[in-house]
């Protein structure tokens, strides 16, 4: 999980919510059935960014989470796409 303020969670000692850091909602943290809008993309690597953009995931896009297991399945319009936890964690959303 990436932290909004300090990048990878490990870099700031695990980003404890209690300490006041903001732990963002991502596609990986949503429950099946929840709808959200993509807010920003914070992928681990630039090649992951291309994959997300290629799938049509970019800020402003509305998604609905269909499944959280065995991987995250999100629906955009009539298209469903599956992404694993690592990719899904790079998509910050607002409910």
């Amino acid at each position, binding site marked *: 999980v990436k932290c909004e303020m300090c990048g990878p969670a490990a870099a700031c000692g695990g980003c404890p919510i209690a300490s006041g850091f903001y732990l963002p909602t991502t596609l990986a943290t949503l429950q099946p059935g929840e709808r959200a809008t993509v807010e920003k*993309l914070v*992928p681990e*690597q*630039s*090649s*992951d*960014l*291309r*994959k997300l*953009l*290629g*799938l*049509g995931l*970019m*800020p*402003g*896009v509305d998604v609905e989470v*269909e*499944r959280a*297991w*065995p*991987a995250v*399945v999100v*629906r*955009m*319009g*009539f*298209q*469903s*796409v*599956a*992404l*694993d936890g*690592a*990719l899904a964690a790079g998509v910050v959303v607002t409910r």
Partner: protein
Amino acid sequence: MRFMRFWSEREADGGVATADLAVVPAAACARWLLVGAPNVGKSALFGRLTGRYANVSNYPGTSVEISGGALAAAPDCVHVTDTPGMHALLAVTDEERVARRAVLDGSGTIIHVADASHLDYALPLTLQLLSLGRPLVLVCNLMDEARARGVAPDCAMLAERLGIPVVGTVATTGEGVDALIAAALAAAVPRDGWAQPRPFADVAQALDPAQPLAAELALAGDDDYARAAQARTPGRWCAALSARVAHWGDESAFAVALAMARRRMALALLDGVLPAAVPQRARAQRAIDRWLLGPVTGFLTVALVLYVGFYLFVGRFGAGTLVDWIERVVFGEWVNPVVQRAAALLPWAPLRDLVAGQYGLLTLGVRYAVAIVLPIVGTFFLMFALLEDAGYLPRLALLLDRGMKRIGLSGRAVIPLVLGFGCNTMATLVTRTLETKRERVIATLLLAISIPCSAQLGVVLGILSRTPMGLAVWALVMLGVFVAVGLGAARLMPGAAPTFYLELPPLRVPQARNVLLKTATRVRWYFAEIFPLFLLASVILWAGDLTGVLARATRLLVPLVRLLHLPDAAAAAFLYGFFRRDFGAAGLYDMAARGMLDAAALTTAAVTITLFIPCIAQFLVMKKERGLKVALSVLAAATTTAFVVGGLVGWAMRLAGGAA
């Protein structure tokens, strides 16, 4: 000679981009290029336009190669090219690079094929293609689905806004295809200079006025184009970079900002073109998906598919009933007597042997190909096509992703690995859809060593049908080797963990026409591949037999075979195995049928021959796709594994047998 030509042709049409694009029409010919996202019906449309059949599937990533053909309606003046699906011009996988090169480096009319239900996703690519300044047609395919969902776009309105022809089609029925041909023939260079969003266009134009699209890709962080731009115009590249950093920041920020700007343009263009419908997936689809992807029900379905589809249908019916019938009735009663009688008329004994002897063209080559291989391959590909057309394979990939990650692969690799049970050679080609070199090498290795192709599988099922114990041991050993090789390779090969992403096509009831066409195409491909090899193997074995070389070569293998406690005659079977693994397995099948092998020996032989070196065809494809070094390493690994594991299994079984 024929054989050599056969192989050099295969190499040519299998090669990446450069070789593929070399298959060009005459100079006067117009060229059409089909481009679009995966799974929107490009290949089906290609089939409609050319009358040729490219592989059409309900899963992404079937057209791993570029295929070309003449337009059926006007064969002399239009050449149509199909490309692998690409999500965006910023490529991730090799197949996307192949498609992109075809678009950016090619010439002629571009036909962008889009899913009519998902135009908001497709239109940004249309806008990118527009800035190429080449004739462009937008095809809204799958119009029937869009109409059923109430989201069919107003093509005429969109055409007016874009300034290019927009045609609605249903590729599977042929609806709208004539209109598409007319539109593409008349397509002119569209008005330019508006499709690239403004501030981005200025920077891109400054970097490369001739190819602003390539400039845009370079600035968005595409290594190929960035290097090219830097090498060609270093001064401009520096200026463009500093402009980018000042405006947007790094390449990722630029790529996201550009993608969002294009999306806003697309949504503005689509305003009023699309009816205001709320997209909702059918409830039945959701319920089936819940079942197919559930932790318990999902794996239950996998087990059921394996048992009914593969064990009962392919194993029992294909490899059992059909093989028996063709061998006994077709060859035993009809073909062989005629051939023997005809061969008896030949004047020279070796010539008689060449036709109908132990290693005869008809008695060995044709019989193995038609009686033993064809029924198994046919039933396997039929089953595979059914699952494919229903849309089950992407779900299988998704379900197995977590397990695959442990052996260094992503769920995507499930598709080539399953296809490998049909034909390893074909599957090795399909590993091109995997993202990293590491994944491609691991998948190649697993295919070469532990995935038996359907011909082997059938023959192994055949020889082990008498010993259920042996069959169980064989299956467990294969699974064990698969996991061990995967774990070992993932550990030994450096590289980042793979990521998994895949679009899930809607589940559909399989269409008889699609399924049969797919099966026929794959079987034809398989036969084009193996038939010459079977015949060649017959000839080589016949010549070797005639000259005594075969006996000497076999004697060389005898110590190895004895090491495995197999009868000496098995050496010959291993020698055939070099031509095709299934060919070797078929040799063992004959020995088992004559009662020369006991349970332990049968299992040893089955294990060894399954793990043994890949057939020549697979080796050649490995060499072409992965390079000689990887191919030779895989060969060495497979041979070692085969004899070591085979020997261990035989030893353990005899030990257990002796104790009991």
